[in-house]
């Protein structure tokens, strides 16, 4: 099961990557823990999460080709 992961703002900057593909994670908790292993700075970062463009705050099941976005606090305008 493929998951598309997007990182934005200071998260993309700190991890050096803005988009990656992950495979084999059934929910956001397991995905995040794998991402934290790969990008240790994530553990100290403040961010919100969206699955398929919907904000989620609790553990969320992921389906094939889901897009998970990790987003630091918004600062538009």
């Amino acid at each position: 099961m493929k998951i598309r992961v997007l990182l934005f703002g200071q998260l993309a900057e700190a991890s050096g990557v803005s988009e990656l593909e992950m495979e084999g994670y059934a929910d956001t908790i397991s995905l995040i823990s794998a991402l934290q292993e790969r990008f240790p700075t994530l553990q100290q970062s403040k961010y919100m999460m969206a699955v398929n463009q919907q904000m989620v705050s609790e553990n969320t099941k992921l389906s094939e080709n889901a897009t998970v976005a990790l987003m630091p606090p918004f600062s538009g305008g």
Partner: protein
Amino acid sequence: MKEGKPKNIFIKGAITASFIAESIEKHSVKKNIGGHSIFLGQVRADEINGKKVSAIEYTAYEEMAMQKMHEIREAVFEQYELTCMHVYHSLGKVAAGEICLFVFTSSAHRKAAIAACSELVERIKAELPVWGAELFEDNTHQWKVNQ
């Protein structure tokens, strides 16, 4: 005008005064409008720890921002008696003194236009996945924090 589909709100670089003028001008054919309310965000040359901001570089989760803006637009149209609503946000680099946000509401009566514009500005800042990096004159930067 209520629209069915998300509109692209993003403009590459600064929003120009002539773009704003054209947008105002277009409304002269809508003779049921009595008041327009406009908010413009302008990049400040803030001084932070002795370094001056020369520009802000904006990035966004564009697809999600447009979808979110679409939801906000529908909600604000529900809430206020508006004839028109337009929102534009810059992407990429916008120099200090230039305009990065243009929110424009119109109504038969002033109160709806003014209240809707003000609410839109708050929601745009709080809810759209957009990020600004404040670029300093020495080529370093810091990430903007919205108040």
